């Protein structure tokens, strides 16, 4: 059963918030406010998260994993290499010396953390992404967009709500 | 010629183990058989060593060692050459040698750079205007014969450096065959005054000096650790002397106006007014007499008037130091007093030396630390000793246009003759000049015919050292490798060819100099104490050891030096116009400049100033401050003869009334590593001679200095701290009362 997309543009966050609240309060068949609603904005706006409700972010778990693995890998790689290559004896120092290895472990800890965080970001944010079916470049300028996905039947209800809240523009996916 | 004969030799005698030494270096490895321009398959063979058909003694990857004799100076150190794949790589000392006991100085080690020097003469050269034209040896010999034709013996002269052994014999024979007596043996910095003074005082020119047996060595400018007589031998004695007998360390007191390497190692370095060494010696004798040492009548008479106050005033040595020195000499016996070139380089040099030798007599050192040297039972082989008086005579004769043919060998008078002699101009008056040379040095450049010589590492020879360390010995020089250049010849071979031109019959048995050498040594086999052994064994053993030890008797030593005739002039008055004494210093590695083209020596820092690749003017810092001179100021140093320019170096080890410039640099020829580096102080030396021996008084030139207004960076190893340790614990020192040397290992 195919779903259809609908995109509405608003001039401010306040408008968008009202729309989302109304959508939340209105029960529309074939439209789930938690799953089928996407707010697009030109800036990062914490209120959006608030009025959309807390959604979990998992990037930090990637970070933790990356940092720990980076550190462990660093230490064992370095110590292991030193141990295997003990011909490289340095007078006055043990074959596996701690201070230098800790410095390098530290760097690897950060390296792992950053790399895997970015990886986590890409995964969690779904990037790189295919462009969604409806997009207006004004989002990257100054408009707030609300993209909804619904059964064909719900489209008109949604459209009505958008219009009510002075949507500047409403785009609808062409029917099949 | 030599090559072909040696090839024949190879062909005729298959190698066996016994033979390999004989052939060694003669035909050597399969290198250098082809000359230039050869287009055959042999082309480039000189750079290839065949391991498929390697000669017996070429073991790939393994070095073999052969004994020979160092030819870098006349001390006659026995060397041991390291040879790999037919190349001589390094010269080391022959441990069996009484002279150097396995040790080597830097000069000697640089012998390989003489051998491999890229600027060696490779072909006989005949003068064509300003250029040299390559000719064949046959033509060269023919030319010599032609030039000698109809010339009387009187009109032929041979100028040679010090020469000994069979080469000297052949040289003498050749001149005899020419009917000439004009052999001039010239060495610019030889201890000639010393020899005369020793002969007078001890009855022998070169007795043995036992530094190791002395408790005190008092040296008047004898640089026995650097350049004097047999430095490597004396250095070893010095090491023993420092360890001392029963842990009592030997004390070295050096008296001189410019610090030498030996002076830099002295326990007490006493700076004296230039030329007053003899006065100091007499003053010490006088003080010894006053402290109870018995003086014979004539000695007492001779030293009368040399009281401490006067001596101190004349020499600049304080009474306190004089007293301490006298006390030390009296207390610690035996001692040894040495006279060196610094004391002898004056018009009264012989007198200075006599006064210094007299001190040995007074201290009873003769027979203890000065012993008779062993004599060589073959007088014809003892060295023809070089001196500068010979050059003066030659120069006068040349100026008179006396010579139609002049040979020069192993000496470079155009470079080393004092400027006042105008030697170069006089040399031009000789008719036909033949130079036997390794390089196109200044003298060879003036020659009409230049004949290229084998290097000392590819030539045969015998050498008899002037200074005998223990028993007498004859040193064997043998090739350490095949000749590097196809068209050079050994001096012995050349002389043999030349003498054959005159007396072919006499020498017909000798195909070459090698044969001559072998034959003549075999004839005296019995006298050498090897009468019982067969010829081949004797010969192999001789070549293996590189030394023939002689059972010669000791020369007579007389211990009765007389003070008669000892007349020392008063300390020289100041010269108003030329206010500085010029001290041309003889450095250990450059000497008279014949080896300046050996880059190791150029880059080996002068031990005292650490300067490399250049000449310098040493001046005392106080004097320099007075004159506003700082390091690197270019100074014009002018004598009555001429002037030269060199950078100033502030040096505390020099008398404020003297400046010093090292000899050896300032070449206008001699190849890429020598030409254009530094200045040549020989050029400005005045013609002053020792009154007794006629030797050039090296230290008598007076100079004035002026800044030319240019300042350059002195190229030296010493850093900005100027050799001060700056309170850091780096080179530490203790005095003898703080150490217990007898407990040491």
């Amino acid at each position: 059963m195919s779903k259809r997309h609908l995109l509405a543009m608003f001039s401010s966050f306040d408008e968008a918030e009202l729309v989302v609240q109304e959508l939340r309060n209105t029960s529309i068949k074939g439209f789930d406010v938690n799953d089928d609603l996407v707010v697009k904005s030109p800036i990062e706006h914490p209120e959006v998260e608030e009025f959309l409700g807390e959604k979990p972010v998992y990037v930090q778990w990637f970070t933790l994993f990356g940092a720990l693995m980076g550190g462990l890998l660093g230490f064992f790689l370095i110590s292991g290499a030193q141990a295997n290559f003990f011909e490289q004896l340095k007078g006055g120092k043990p074959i596996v010396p701690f201070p230098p290895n800790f410095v390098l472990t530290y760097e690897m800890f950060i390296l792992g953390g950053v790399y895997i965080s970015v990886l986590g970001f890409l995964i969690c944010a779904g990037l790189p992404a295919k462009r969604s079916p409806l997009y207006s470049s004004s989002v990257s300028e100054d408009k707030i967009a609300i993209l909804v996905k619904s059964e064909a039947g719900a489209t008109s209800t949604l459209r009505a709500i958008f219009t009510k809240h002075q949507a500047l523009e409403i785009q609808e996916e062409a029917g099949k | 010629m030599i090559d072909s004969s040696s090839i024949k030799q190879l062909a005729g005698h298959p190698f066996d183990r016994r033979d390999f030494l004989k052939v060694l270096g003669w035909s050597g490895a399969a290198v250098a058989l082809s000359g230039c321009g050869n287009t055959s398959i042999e082309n480039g063979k000189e750079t290839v060593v065949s391991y498929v058909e390697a000669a017996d003694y070429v073991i790939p990857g393994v070095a073999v060692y052969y004994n020979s004799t160092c030819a870098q100076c006349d001390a006659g150190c026995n060397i041991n050459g390291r040879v790999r794949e037919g190349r001589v790589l390094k010269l080391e000392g022959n441990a069996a040698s009484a002279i150097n006991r396995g040790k080597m100085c830097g000069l000697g080690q640089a012998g390989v750079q003489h051998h491999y020097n890229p600027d060696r003469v490779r072909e006989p050269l005949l003068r064509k205007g300003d250029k040299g034209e390559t000719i064949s040896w046959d033509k060269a010999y023919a030319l010599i014969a032609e030039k000698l034709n109809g010339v009387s013996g009187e009109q032929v002269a041979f100028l040679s450096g010090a020469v000994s052994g069979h080469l000297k014999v052949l040289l003498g024979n050749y001149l005899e065959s020419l009917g000439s007596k004009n052999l001039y043996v010239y060495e610019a910095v030889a201890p000639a005054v010393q020899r005369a003074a020793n002969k007078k005082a001890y009855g022998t020119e070169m007795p043995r000096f036992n530094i190791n047996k002395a408790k005190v060595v008092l040296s008047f400018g004898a640089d026995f650790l650097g350049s004097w007589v047999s430095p490597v031998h004396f250095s070893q004695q010095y090491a023993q002397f420092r360890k001392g007998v029963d842990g009592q360390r030997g004390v070295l007191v050096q008296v001189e106006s410019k610090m030498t390497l030996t002076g830099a190692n002295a326990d007490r370095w006493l700076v004296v007014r230039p030329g007053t060494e003899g006065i100091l010696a007499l003053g010490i004798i006088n003080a010894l007499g006053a402290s109870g040492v018995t003086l014979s009548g004539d000695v007492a008479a001779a030293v009368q008037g040399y009281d401490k106050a006067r001596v101190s005033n004349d020499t600049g040595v304080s009474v306190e130091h004089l007293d301490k020195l006298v006390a030390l000499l009296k207390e610690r016996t035996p001692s040894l007093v040495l006279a060196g070139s610094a004391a002898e380089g004056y018009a009264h040099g012989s007198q200075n030396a006599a006064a210094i030798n007299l001190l040995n007599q007074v201290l009873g050192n003769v027979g203890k630390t000065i012993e008779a040297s062993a004599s060589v039972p073959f007088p014809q082989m003892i060295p023809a000793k070089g001196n500068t008086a010979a050059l003066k005579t030659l120069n006068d004769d040349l100026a008179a246009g006396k010579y139609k043919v002049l040979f020069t060998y192993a000496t470079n008078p155009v470079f080393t003759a004092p400027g006042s002699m105008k030697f170069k101009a006089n040399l031009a008056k000789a008719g036909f000049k033949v130079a036997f040379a390794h390089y196109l040095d200044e003298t060879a450049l003036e020659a009409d015919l230049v004949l290229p010589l084998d290097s000392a590492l590819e030539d045969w020879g015998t050498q008899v050292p002037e200074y005998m360390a223990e028993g007498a010995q004859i040193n064997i020089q043998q090739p350490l490798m095949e000749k590097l250049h196809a068209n050079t010849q050994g001096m012995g071979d050349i002389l043999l060819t030349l003498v054959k031109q005159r007396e072919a019959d006499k020498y017909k048995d000798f195909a070459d100099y090698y044969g001559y050498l072998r034959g003549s040594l075999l004839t005296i086999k019995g006298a050498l104490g090897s009468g019982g052994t067969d010829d081949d064994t004797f010969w192999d053993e001789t070549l293996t050891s590189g030394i023939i030890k002689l059972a010669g008797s000791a020369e007579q030593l007389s211990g009765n030096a007389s003070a008669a005739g000892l007349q020392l002039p008063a300390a020289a008055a100041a010269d108003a116009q030329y206010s500085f004494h010029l001290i041309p210093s003889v450095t250990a590695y450059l000497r008279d400049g014949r080896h300046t083209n050996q880059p190791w020596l150029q880059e080996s820092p002068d031990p005292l100033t650490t300067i490399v690749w250049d000449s310098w003017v040493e001046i005392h810092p106080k004097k320099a401050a007075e004159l506003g001179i700082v390091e690197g100021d270019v100074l014009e140093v002018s004598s009555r003869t001429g002037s030269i320019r060199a950078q100033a170096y502030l040096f505390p080890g020099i008398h404020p009334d003297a400046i010093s410039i090292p000899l050896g640099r300032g070449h206008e020829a001699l190849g890429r590593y020598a030409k254009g580096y530094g200045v040549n102080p020989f050029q400005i030396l005045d013609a002053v001679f020792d009154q007794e021996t006629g030797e050039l008084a090296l230290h008598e030139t007076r100079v004035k200095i002026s800044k030319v207004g240019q300042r350059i960076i002195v190229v030296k190893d010493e850093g900005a701290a100027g050799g001060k340790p700056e309170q850091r614990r780096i080179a530490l020192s203790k005095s003898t009362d703080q150490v217990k040397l007898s407990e040491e290992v």
Partner: protein
Amino acid sequence: MKDIREDIAWAKINRDVLVSLENPRKLYWVIVFGALSLFSVGLGCEIYQYQVGMGVANLNNPNVWGLYIATFIFWIGMSHSGTLLSAILHLMHADWRKPIYRFAEAMTTFSLMTAGLFVMVHIGRLWQFYYALPYPNDRGTWPNFQSPLLWDAMAIFTYLSSSVLFLYVGMIPDLAICRDNLHKGWRKKLYTLLALGWEGTDRQWRNFRVTYLTIACFLIPLAVSVHSIVASDFAMSQQPGWHVTSFPPYFVAGALYSGCAAIITLFIILRYVFRFEDYMTKSILKKTVRLTFAIAMVWTYLNAVEFAAVWYGHDMDAKAVLIQKATGPFAPFWWGMVFCGSVVPLMLAFKRFQTNIPVLFAVSLLLNLGMWLERWMIVAPTFSHGYYPWVWDNDQWPSLIQWGMVMGSFGWFTLLFMVFCKVFPSVSMYEVKEMVYHRSLHLKKNETAGQGAH
């Protein structure tokens, strides 16, 4: 004076910034040409040095490191202010950083790349530099992990790649703007590719925020560690004048200092060249200047601490080096460093200079000069006056080859930076919008509160 006008329309922000990608003032091309020429000089010097040998740099024993290492530290140091502006101020919610952090981050990236070049031109066998990389190989050899130089390599690699990622991640929303607004062509393709399909959805923003914050948190200790490690090149050695405990913080302060000075310079240049007067306002400049002044004083203090520690300590060798810095042949440069580094910034304390653009431009250049001299004075005097007096050598003057490469590095950096500013938005559009938005909200709130009070 406001940091930014609240009434700037968001669309205008887009327009103003995007125009910088297309149509800068002529001066831009002059700068690019100048930079290219300088870089060519440096490249020529390097080719010559590569062919002939390091000797042409007129280095020697003991002066084995010359301007190369000094300038290396300089560039590493300069990289730190980018991190300071973007990461530290981000964590501290100082929103005035927003119009200027992008170019500061670019500066970080490019100065690190420039610094990396100096490692290359410095080593004697450039063609074997990969020996210093830890890679498994059939000989079983590894680099020496004990060497501070290896820590350097590791730290710089981490820092450079993290900085690039940070710069990139922070730029994704702007790249989307570029993608949406530019005409077809290679640029459009480039931005489309780099924007990764960013649409500004709530999910993207949510993860973006956390990621950006996380990387910022990593970058701060990383930046500190990087310059501490560079300081370790010296402090971990045994040489007098280097073996100083306070070197790591001293280096970090110096790094922030030189970076801030460079930011002022580039701020002024960009503001003019790209007509960013509305965004890079004098008020922001003033804040940057004040920050610079504060760091200058910290640096001065740490400098004094170092000298005092040496002076009152019993390490005679270190003391000798210090005395030689102040009185020896390096004295003009050392005093020049003190003047430029500690005296000149005092001008920044005066309000009237804090917004005077010509004065600030001159001052920032002097500060940069002072900081470069500082690095040279750390490296050179210890070599020429180390433990071992025999080899003291105070006269070693860098050859033109060395100077050429130092100049070339400035050309290289400027070139990279200028090309970046032309290709990528050097002012963060989305963040300026945020800034304007939040400030206007704040303004409204105040107005409402003000009205309520009446």
